[in-house]
C-alpha cells in the first residue's frame, strides 16, 4: 500500500499532483466556508459594486421616470450644479457639516475628558449622554421641532415668564434653520462620539500620565500635546463615521423642517430622494447621488491613507 502510493506519485510526477491540487483548491478546500460566505459575496458583487456602477452609468443618461434614455454625457451634472435647490442643498450640508463636525468633536472630547476624571455616577452620566443615540432621527426631529416651535415651545415658555422680547424662532428663520438642525443632531450624536473617544482615552497607557506628571507638565497640556496625538487613529475613525453620517443626513430634515422654510434647509440626500421617487427625473437624482458618493470617497481618503499605508517603519 505504502509502496504503491510512493511509486505512483513518483512516476506521475508533478503534473498529476498539480491537477489534483487545482481540483482541491477550487472545490474541496473550504467548500462550506465559501458556501457560508455566499451572502457576503453576493452583497459585495451585486449591491455594493453592481448597484453603484449602475447608478453611475445611468447618471450619464437622460432617464426620466424609468431607467432608459440615451447617454448625454455630463448634461445631468451641469444641470445639477445650475439648479438653485441643489446648490442650496450643498451649501446647507456644508454649513451643517462643518458646524456639526466641529461641535461634536470638541464637545464629545470635552465630555470624554470629564468622564475620564474618575467621577461618581459615571455610568449614569454615560446613559444620559448616550440614550439619544438609541432614538431615531425621526423622534429626535419631532421632539426638537416641538421644543423650537415658537407657538408652544421654548420661546412661548420664556415669554410667559415675562421676558416678552425673547425670541427663539430658528425653525422659522431662513438663516438659522440649519443651526436648529445642528442642535438636534448634536443632541442625538455627541454621546456616541464621547463613548468612542472615551474608549480611546482609556486605551492610553497609565504610565504616560505618570511620566507627564513626573516631568511637571500641566494636565491640559498633556491632553493637547501628548494624548491627542496618540489618539490619532481613534479620532480619524470617529471623523470618518461622523462625516459619512453627515453626508447621508435625511431623516432628521424630513422630521424637523421638511426642507423649509422655503428651501433653506434642503439637503442633498433629500434632493436625491425627491428627484428619484417624486419628480420623476431619475437621471438627475442619480447624478446627485453620484456626487454624494464622490464626496464620501474624498472623506474616506485620510482614513485609507492611515489604515492602508504600507507599514514601512515596523
Amino acid at each position, binding site marked *: 500500500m505504502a509502496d504503491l502510493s510512493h511509486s505512483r506519485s513518483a512516476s506521475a510526477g508533478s503534473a498529476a499532483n498539480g491537477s489534483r491540487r487545482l481540483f482541491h483548491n477550487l472545490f474541496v478546500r473550504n467548500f462550506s466556508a465559501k458556501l457560508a460566505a455566499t451572502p457576503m459575496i453576493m452583497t459585495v458583487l451585486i*449591491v455594493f459594486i453592481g448597484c453603484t456602477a449602475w447608478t453611475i452609468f445611468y447618471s450619464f443618461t437622460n432617464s426620466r421616470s424609468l431607467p432608459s434614455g440615451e447617454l448625454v454625457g455630463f448634461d445631468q451634472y451641469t444641470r445639477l450644479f445650475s439648479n438653485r435647490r441643489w446648490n442650496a442643498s450643498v451649501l446647507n450640508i456644508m454649513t451643517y457639516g462643518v458646524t456639526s463636525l466641529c461641535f461634536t468633536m470638541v464637545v464629545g472630547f470635552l465630555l470624554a475628558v470629564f468622564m475620564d476624571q474618575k467621577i461618581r455616577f459615571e455610568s449614569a452620566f454615560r446613559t444620559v449622554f448616550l440614550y439619544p443615540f438609541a432614538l431615531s432621527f425621526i423622534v429626535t426631529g419631532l421632539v426638537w421641532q416641538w421644543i423650537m416651535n415658537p407657538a*408652544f415651545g421654548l420661546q412661548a415658555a420664556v415669554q410667559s415668564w415675562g421676558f416678552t422680547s425673547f425670541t427663539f424662532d430658528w425653525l422659522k428663520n431662513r438663516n438659522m434653520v440649519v443651526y436648529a438642525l445642528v442642535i438636534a443632531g448634536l443632541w442625538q450624536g455627541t454621546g456616541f462620539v464621547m463613548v468612542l473617544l472615551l474608549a480611546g482615552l482609556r486605551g492610553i497607557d497609565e504610565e504616560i500620565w505618570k511620566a507627564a506628571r513626573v516631568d511637571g507638565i500641566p494636565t491640559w497640556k498633556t491632553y493637547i500635546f501628548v494624548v491627542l496625538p496618540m489618539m490619532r487613529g481613534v479620532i480619524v475613525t470617529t471623523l470618518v463615521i461622523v462625516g459619512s453620517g453627515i453626508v447621508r443626513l435625511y431623516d432628521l430634515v424630513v422630521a424637523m423642517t421638511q426642507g423649509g422654510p422655503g428651501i433653506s434647509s434642503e439637503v442633498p440626500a433629500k434632493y436625491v430622494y425627491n428627484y428619484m421617487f417624486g419628480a420623476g427625473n431619475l437621471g438627475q437624482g442619480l447624478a446627485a447621488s453620484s456626487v454624494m458618493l464622490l464626496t464620501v470617497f474624498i472623506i474616506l481618503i485620510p482614513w485609507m491613507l492611515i489604515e492602508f499605508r504600507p507599514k514601512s517603519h515596523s
Partner: protein
Amino acid sequence: MLLFAALYYLFPLYVMITTSLKGMPEVRLGNIFAPPMEVTFAPWVKAWDSACTGLYCEGLKPGFWNSVKITVPSTIISVLIAAVNGYALVNWRFKGSEIFFTVLLFGSFIPYQVMLYPLVIITAQLKVFGTLQGVVLIHTIFGMPILTLLFRNYFASLPPELFKAARVDGAGFWRIFFEIMVPMSLPIFVVAVILQVTGIWNDFLFGVVFAGTTNYPMTVQAQ
C-alpha cells in the same frame, strides 16, 4: 459642567414625557417646562389607537406591529449571516476572502441613496418590492458590513489553537461553529442584536421606500 451638559441631554426627554401627558388645552398654553397639571394618558391612547396618519385613523398600532414584523426577522437573519461570515473570514480564509471583506467595509460608507434605485429594480424583479420580505432583505444587506466586522474582530480575538484543536478532533465547518464558537460568543451576539434592533427599529429610509404603504413601520407613520 457635566451636570449642565446632562441637562441639555435630559431636557428633550422631559419635554417628551410631560407634554405627552398633558391635555391639548394645556399644551396650547405653551409652557413646556411646567409639569402637567392634570395627568392624562389620553394622548397615549389616541396615538396608539386612533391618531390619523395619512388617510387612515388607526393610530400607531399598525405601524408598531409592522415595525416588529420588520425588526424581528431582519435582526435574526442579519445576525446569523454575519456571525457565520465573520467566522469564515477568520478561520476558513480562502482566496479573495479578504478582498471581499475590504470592499464590504468600504461599501458601508457608500450613501444609501446611491444604491437605492437599483435595489428597487432588483427587489421588484424578485417580486419582493413593497413587501415585508423586501425590507427584511434590504436590512440584512445593509446590516452586513458592520455586523461582519463585529463578529470577525471577535472571532479573531479567540485563540486560534482552539479552532485547530477542534479540526484535529475531526469537527467540520458547521460543527466547530455551533459547538465551539457560538457558545463562546454570547456577549458579542447580544451586542449585535442590540445594534440591529435599534438600527432597524429607528430606520426610516428603507421603510418608506421598500415596505409599501400597508407595511410602513412606525417611524414612517409618526413622521
